[in-house]
């Protein structure tokens, strides 16, 4: 039988102990949404654990910097390796594998497409990347943050869609507090933001951790049952890929530029991850996303596009200007 806590100090020590045990997994982005929120709730009220979470985050960032500081291979090594590889015959498993042949033909036929969305009324243009086109050089893709789309999708899927949220909108002071706490540079944007929500209302706003990255997450509801997310995260891992060919080859990047004059000079990049539609834009120091699960937000076929067009250029320019 569990002993009751004999004092408030015992209770706090037990709560801190649990949080400290989970903290490494929290910083690594490996906790469930519930545990993430448990940590965030605890660190809101416990300064020691909040400081420790911060220290461990900085330790992880330091390890990451050190690991990334190793030099590139010497010039010519890649060519030597390619030459060596070209002298080795193809793996024997391919030579008698008709199934592979069929798969190869299908794969070559499909290719990767980039869809450029045009303003309403004009037909979509499709630009296909040739299946045999050479991949982009590594240097061009090294600073691309393809994973940010996964973070935005995970925020929608594992937080907005996975939890119950109130129906009532946050009041303007509540939204102001959440924005300022999420990132001080976002303070004061609440009124302008509210005017661009296109029939949606912000029902919750908090910070949460996805894919090892702390994001500011606003959950929106409209008239239908679905939810949308506005996600902001620091631009620490690179820029957004502008099209499919800028994916690093290991991810199914299917991005497109949302054009149309309404967005001014801000490029909106569209993507789909894990059944979540994501529209992203890049600011000077932040990445912003609007996401919606496929079929989740009723009332519009592409609610994230509509909202993204209204909101993201504003966020990019307002935060950059601020």
């Amino acid at each position: 039988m569990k002993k009751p806590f004999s004092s408030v100090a015992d209770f706090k020590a037990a709560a801190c102990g649990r949080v400290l045990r989970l903290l490494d997994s929290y910083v690594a982005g490996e906790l469930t949404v519930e545990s993430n929120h448990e940590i965030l709730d605890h660190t809101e009220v416990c300064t020691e654990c909040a400081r420790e979470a911060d220290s461990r985050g900085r330790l992880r960032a330091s390890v990451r910097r050190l690991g990334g500081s190793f030099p590139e291979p010497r010039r010519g090594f890649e060519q030597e390796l390619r030459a060596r590889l070209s002298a080795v015959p193809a793996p024997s498993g391919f030579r008698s594998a008709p199934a592979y042949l069929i798969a190869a033909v299908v794969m070559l036929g499909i290719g990767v497409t980039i869809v450029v969305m045009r303003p309403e009324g004009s037909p979509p243009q499709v630009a296909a990347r040739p299946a045999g086109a050479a991949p982009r050089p590594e240097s061009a893709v090294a600073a691309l943050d393809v994973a940010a789309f996964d973070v935005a999708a995970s925020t929608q899927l594992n937080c907005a869609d996975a939890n119950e949220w109130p129906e009532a909108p946050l009041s303007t002071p509540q939204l102001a507090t959440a924005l300022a706490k999420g990132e001080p540079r976002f303070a004061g944007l609440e009124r302008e933001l509210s005017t661009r929500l296109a029939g949606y209302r912000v029902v919750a706003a908090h910070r949460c951790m996805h894919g090892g990255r702390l994001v500011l997450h606003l959950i929106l509801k409209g008239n239908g049952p679905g939810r949308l997310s506005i996600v902001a995260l620091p631009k620490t891992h690179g820029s957004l890929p502008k099209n499919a060919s800028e994916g690093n080859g290991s991810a199914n990047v299917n991005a497109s530029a949302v054009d149309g004059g309404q967005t001014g000079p801000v490029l909106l990049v569209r993507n789909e991850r894990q059944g979540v539609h994501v529209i992203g834009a890049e600011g000077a120091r932040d990445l912003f996303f609007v996401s919606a699960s496929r079929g989740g937000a009723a009332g519009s076929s592409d609610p994230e596009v509509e909202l993204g067009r209204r909101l993201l250029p504003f966020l990019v320019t307002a935060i950059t200007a601020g």
Partner: protein
Amino acid sequence: MGLLSFGRPAAPSLTERIREDFDREVLPHFKEIYRAALRMTRRPAEAEDVTQEVFLQAWKSFDRYERGTNGRAWLYKILWNVHQQKIRKRVPTPLGAEGEAIMAETLAAPEITPTEITDTEVSGALENLSDEHRQIVLLSDVDEFTYKEIASILKIPIGTVMSRLSRARAALRLMLHENARRAGIISGPDAIPQGVTS
């Protein structure tokens, strides 16, 4: 000669396609694999040997690689195998992961990370970790693999990944803590709050 090769030799065409697939899915990770190899070996010449071996093995077993899956994790798996084969030939380090685990448990590794740490101190502490512990921390923090991916790369159960990472991080914190204590930045047991030691 079969129907598919009519008018054109089939084999070269197929080989070309396989090479295109390989170029697209595997070779873009070349620089990252070299850097990871350099982290493991510390010597550029050895890192080149390891990188070359990784890509040769990847090419020879490319028929078993499923297109569109996680090519990066697949290469790390090969890299880990190649590295393990190489270090098996060497003399083991004086204090292995088990030793560190015992040390961390015996000395009640602090849960508290010093707040004033520099990259140089972190680098020194990482150097002093066992190879096993250093590699798992790097796979998680630098390469940003998930626990599941690390389990696949190292061929160990996910529970072992979690406990090994936890011990590695505790050992890292302990070293940083000891350094800070020696430098007079923190003052020994007082820096560890009551009730939160492991």
